[in-house]
């Protein structure tokens, strides 16, 4: 617990969190790609992979946190936040291990949080998503009043306030880093910035959420129930959650 804020050069101490499950093929290049652009520590949270994910991450000089059993992408992410908080990091950036989030976007994603414009920054790439996914996002926007383009993006930056909210006991009930997380942040009075970034196609595999009709149906149902449960009358009256937006073009 030695790293303070701000550091001598005026920047915040930042941790990159990469939750990974069976991503041996891509995790190494993801870590090396991050290192090309920023000099931040990278933590790979290995969610009980059965392949060489942990070894590949270590070979790329990342710190690996090994989960004793599968806790899900969100559980792994929370483990990363706990690490960041315990070791005094002021900021954490989260990205997927499948290679769809380029390391070059990290300085842009972390900037609004570092400058104190908002507590959270979300990297979005609307062109990338299928029309079905756009329909799902639209439904979630309607239900929650969350005026965000992409509610499921895994490329985000969080400050300490946000990380503290997201490591609470209540946050451990969530399963995905999406609507539930955003609702929780808004309820805590925190703010977000949306930034348009370039994203790549996944190096291997496919989305863990959108991989079969059954999981899609279950995911939609879960998110609808969650949105209904967390509904507040004030949701649709204001847009306090969005601090700034740089997504290029209209919505």
């Amino acid at each position, binding site marked *: 617990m030695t790293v303070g804020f701000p550091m001598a050069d005026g920047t915040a101490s930042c941790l990159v969190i990469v939750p990974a499950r069976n991503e041996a093929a891509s995790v190494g290049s993801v870590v090396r790609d991050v290192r090309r652009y920023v000099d931040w520590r990278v933590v790979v949270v290995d969610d009980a992979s059965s392949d060489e994910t942990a070894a590949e991450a270590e070979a790329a000089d990342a710190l690996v946190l090994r989960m004793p*059993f599968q806790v899900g992408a969100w559980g792994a992410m929370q483990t990363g936040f706990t690490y960041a908080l315990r070791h005094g990091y002021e900021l954490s950036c989260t990205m997927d291990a499948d290679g769809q989030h380029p390391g070059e976007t990290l300085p842009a994603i972390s900037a609004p949080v570092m400058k104190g414009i908002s507590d959270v920054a979300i990297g979005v790439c609307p062109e990338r998503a299928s029309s079905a996914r756009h329909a799902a996002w639209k439904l979630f926007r309607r239900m929650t009043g969350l005026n965000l383009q992409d509610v499921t993006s895994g490329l985000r930056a969080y400050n300490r306030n946000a990380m503290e909210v997201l490591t609470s006991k209540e946050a451990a009930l969530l*399963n995905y880093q999406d609507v539930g997380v955003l609702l929780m942040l808004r309820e805590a009075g925190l703010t977000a910035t949306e930034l348009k970034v370039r994203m790549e196609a996944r190096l291997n595999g496919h989305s863990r959420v959108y991989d079969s009709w059954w999981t899609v149906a*279950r995911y939609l149902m879960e*998110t609808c129930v969650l949105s209904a*449960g967390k509904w507040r009358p004030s949701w649709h009256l204001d847009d306090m959650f969005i601090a700034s937006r740089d997504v290029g073009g209209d919505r």
Partner: protein
Amino acid sequence: MIAYHWTSGIIAFVLAGTIIWLVRNNRLQARTAAGWMVLALIIAATGLFPGMVDFAARVLGIHYPPTLAMLCGFAVLLVKLVKNDIERSRSQQQIRILAQKVSHLEAQLDDRNNERRDTDSG
């Protein structure tokens, strides 16, 4: 006497309301809640369209349709019980793994502290 679809509707409404309330108070995971909401929808549907149960009973050769509804209710409960047991077994397993891991870490930490003390005094 009130109509059957009112009874069924009230049961569905109370069930759905309770589930939403539990989610709101962070007492129930959305994943579990979704299953209960589906059940509430089914109860509401059987209340609104009682003919559905009658039709299904006729197809399945059951002479007294309410028996089918009861049977389905029991089946759902049975499945839920088994699922609960599976979940509980998994939780137990995870707790054991965690306990083992913690004890190993504690031993490792003790070892390291002892080594440091030895080098400090030596």
